[in-house]
């Protein structure tokens, strides 16, 4: 069942925040949706792609976030409502376009959904996207519940058209990935007709001077502020003159309500929940601030709301002062994700109350038992993961070469190449495509005596997203490095979304494959293709490439993600360890296969003191057969 097939207004559904956002867009009658996948935003486009045919939408996985934003803007310019979604890192990629788009404005509703990842649960940073709304003078909305995620998205299209500009909706992991009760509205059945009006003034900043357009943005802000003053997305609960006023937004709303309930403080604490966080509804906030002397700001990542509230306070009635609690005061940490307990403790501290989660004896006993009995579960490549064997070949080739080769990394499952799973081979990891740019730069340091080899790994989806310009940079500047494309046929980390190297698009339509080899040939880059399961062959190819210095070279390590494959096919081999031949602790400085190679399908059997296969985990790839120095691991073809 899909969200669009539930075409029964006023019924309740248990929707994930991202599904609610998608539903809100359908109720607003969007025609186009575009994104590059990124946790925690990916399900928005995934959900819309599923219903593209039945709702007459055009939905695409774009090559990167900047292009996604441009594709969505094209629809808006041409009389069709559009939604663009991305995670916080993606916003940086789209920002160059967005910081011009705000000046030219748009035509039909254009909503940019940015899903931040406080705590960096699935990200390399925990950047706060809200600063962009303030920097670009664009309206910002922050939903606090699944219901609001839907309702706000629908309304954001109205607001976007009202001010003829982009409206930004900022979600966070706990909104996007939580499921909650949502009352559905009506799906829009308005006919869409795309048409670009060539008689209007061009969408270009230089037509009028940028400062003049900037001025218009400011005037827009005043209008938005006025609209926000009476927005139903802002509300207050609590006594008329609260001892403490919590001002919060997004995920902070539920945590605040919970804290007040748990501390039995409903009579002394009020909560002003804001859904419209830039520009701030000044009069509304002033009204509530004048009823109290103590304010606690609850929000995630940066003190964005906190800083803006203090700005407002500075311009209020002379002589009025407040004590602000929040990130600056240390009541809420300035980093990491919020939790119910962080907020409970902050409220307790502001009210001078004592709060303990559990009775001290239970607390102590439970902590002791967890410490004694619960082993850690560290991140790892799956059984049969082709990345493991590529990293194994890289490790071996660099060791044989002996010149302290430097491997730069990128964003994806293979980021685990930083740890034991990838044999600690990766030395740098930043943004998508950055590993290639860094390799290009490092490969030009020979005039300063740099004589180490430079290698870079990037995934197939990353290659298209941002590595190509860096590779071209390397070609043009004749930099010495090897780009290893870990081609596992999909955007594995975020849920196997297609990309230009795959033969279907977001909507499931067949499309031609853009193959990486041909692209490299066109750049006059020498390409070698290898199967990472062939560890010896891959190592030899790498060694050969390491010898031929001169300019960028590409090794495509191609093998489908083992997770995708296991969903479709049975394992090819039954693997067993022959205990007569396994020498256990005597092997390769102690348990070579389990301790060093570390495939989760290989386990150490404490009783026999030999390696053993865990058949519930083993993917049957058979690679360990070639790794075992004793030839103790055997494979048998499964018919």
């Amino acid at each position: 069942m899909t969200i669009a097939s539930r075409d029964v207004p006023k019924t309740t559904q248990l929707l994930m925040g991202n599904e609610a956002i998608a539903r809100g867009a359908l109720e607003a009658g969007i025609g186009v949706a575009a994104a590059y996948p990124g946790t925690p935003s990916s399900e928005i486009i995934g959900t819309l792609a599923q219903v593209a045919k039945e709702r007459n939408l055009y939905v695409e996985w774009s090559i990167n976030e900047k292009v996604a934003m441009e594709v969505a803007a094209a629809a808006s310019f041409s009389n069709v409502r559009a939604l663009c979604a991305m995670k916080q890192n993606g916003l940086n990629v789209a920002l160059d376009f967005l910081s011009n788009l705000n000046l030219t404005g748009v035509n039909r509703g254009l909503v940019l959904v940015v899903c931040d990842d406080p705590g960096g649960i699935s990200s390399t940073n925990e950047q706060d996207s809200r600063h962009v709304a303030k920097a670009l003078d664009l309206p910002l909305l922050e939903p606090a519940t699944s219901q609001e995620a839907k309702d706000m998205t629908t309304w954001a299209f109205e607001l976007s058209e009202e001010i003829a500009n982009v409206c930004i909706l900022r979600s966070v992991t706990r909104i996007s990935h939580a499921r909650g009760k949502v009352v559905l509205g009506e799906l829009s059945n308005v006919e869409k007709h795309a048409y670009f009006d060539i008689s209007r003034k061009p969408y270009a900043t230089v037509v009028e001077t940028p400062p003049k357009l900037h001025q218009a943005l400011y005037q827009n802000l005043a209008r938005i502020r006025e609209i926000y003053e009476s927005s139903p997305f802002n509300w207050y609960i609590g006594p008329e003159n609260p001892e403490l006023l919590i001002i919060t937004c997004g995920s902070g709303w539920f945590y605040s309500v919970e804290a007040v309930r748990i501390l039995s403080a409903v009579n002394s604490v009020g909560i002003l929940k804001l859904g419209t966080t830039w520009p701030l509804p000044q009069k509304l906030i002033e009204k509530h601030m004048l009823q109290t002397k103590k304010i606690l700001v609850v929000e995630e990542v940066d003190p964005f709301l906190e800083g803006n509230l203090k700005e407002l306070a500075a311009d209020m009635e002379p002589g009025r002062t407040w004590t602000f609690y929040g990130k600056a005061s240390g009541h809420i940490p300035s980093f990491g994700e919020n939790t119910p307990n962080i907020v409970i403790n902050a409220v307790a501290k502001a009210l001078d109350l004592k709060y303990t989660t559990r009775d001290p004896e239970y607390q102590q006993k439970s902590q002791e038992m967890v410490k004694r009995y619960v082993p850690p579960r560290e991140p790892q490549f799956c059984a049969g993961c082709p990345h493991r064997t590529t990293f194994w070949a890289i490790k071996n080739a660099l060791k044989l070469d002996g010149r302290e080769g430097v491997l730069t990394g990128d964003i994806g499952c293979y980021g685990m190449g930083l740890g034991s799973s990838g044999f600690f081979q990766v030395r740098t990891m930043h943004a998508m495509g950055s590993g290639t740019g860094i390799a290009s730069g490092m490969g030009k340091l020979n005039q300063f005596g740099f004589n180490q080899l430079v290698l870079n790994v990037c995934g197939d989806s990353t290659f298209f997203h941002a590595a190509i310009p860096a590779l071209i940079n390397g070609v043009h500047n004749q930099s010495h490095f090897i780009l290893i494309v870990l081609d596992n046929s999909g955007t594995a980390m975020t849920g196997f979304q297609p990309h230009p190297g795959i033969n279907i698009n977001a909507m499931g339509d067949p499309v031609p494959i853009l193959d990486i080899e041909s692209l490299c040939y066109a750049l006059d880059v020498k390409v070698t293709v290898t199967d990472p399961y062939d560890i010896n062959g891959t190592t030899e190819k790498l060694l050969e490439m390491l010898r031929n210095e001169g300019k960028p070279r590409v090794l495509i390590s191609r093998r489908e993600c083992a997770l995708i494959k296991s969903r479709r096919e049975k394992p090819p081999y039954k693997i067993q360890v022959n205990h007569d031949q396994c020498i256990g602790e005597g092997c390769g400085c102690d348990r070579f296969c389990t301790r060093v190679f570390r495939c989760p399908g290989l386990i150490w059997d404490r009783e026999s003191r030999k390696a053993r296969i865990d058949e519930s985990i083993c993917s049957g790839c058979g690679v360990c057969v070639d790794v075992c120095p004793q030839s103790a691991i055997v494979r048998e073809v499964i018919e």
Partner: protein
Amino acid sequence: MSIHGRDPINLIITGIGGQGNILISRLIGEVMLEDGYWVTIGETYGASQRGGSVASHVRISKSTQHGPLTPEGQADIILGLEPVESLRMLGIYGNPKTYVITNIRPIHPMAVAIGEAEYPELEKIKQAISELSQKVWYIDASEIAIRLGSPLLANMVMMGALVGTGLLPLKKEACLQQLAASFKEESLTVNMKAFTMGFIQNSS
């Protein structure tokens, strides 16, 4: 036995990525929503989604929507698909009144599988869980699932076991209807069987 009087009811379903705890949380959530309850489901991850610990928080209330995360020490029920994961959750969310229903089949973490860490004896884990909870139901869900044809069915056995305890205000029939609405025809029968096998372990 029932904890109907508690509001909200905080149910935490824990296990290893891939064991299917999220599916249980959705099925329970859908049934409760149908009955007019407010339901919120959140998730917490351990070190990794690739073979790491995963927990779904299901928060059920008659009166209002709650946040997606349970405050520490406030779990009413912990449903564990793996024994040390049940203990891990008790360490954060447990209290003396917490009920636990746990699968007893261990899944060894990497550090244990490669011989760098120890996995405790089952009796020790059981003793710890029992000491930290009001009542525990131990189920060999993986064994039942394997007998039914696949270890992956353990999640439905455990869902049945949860419903069988009667702790939650929901009916077996409503759950079976939800299963029927959620599974494809070819996998429905065996999943219903797994649910029922789990249910009869705990119902009396």
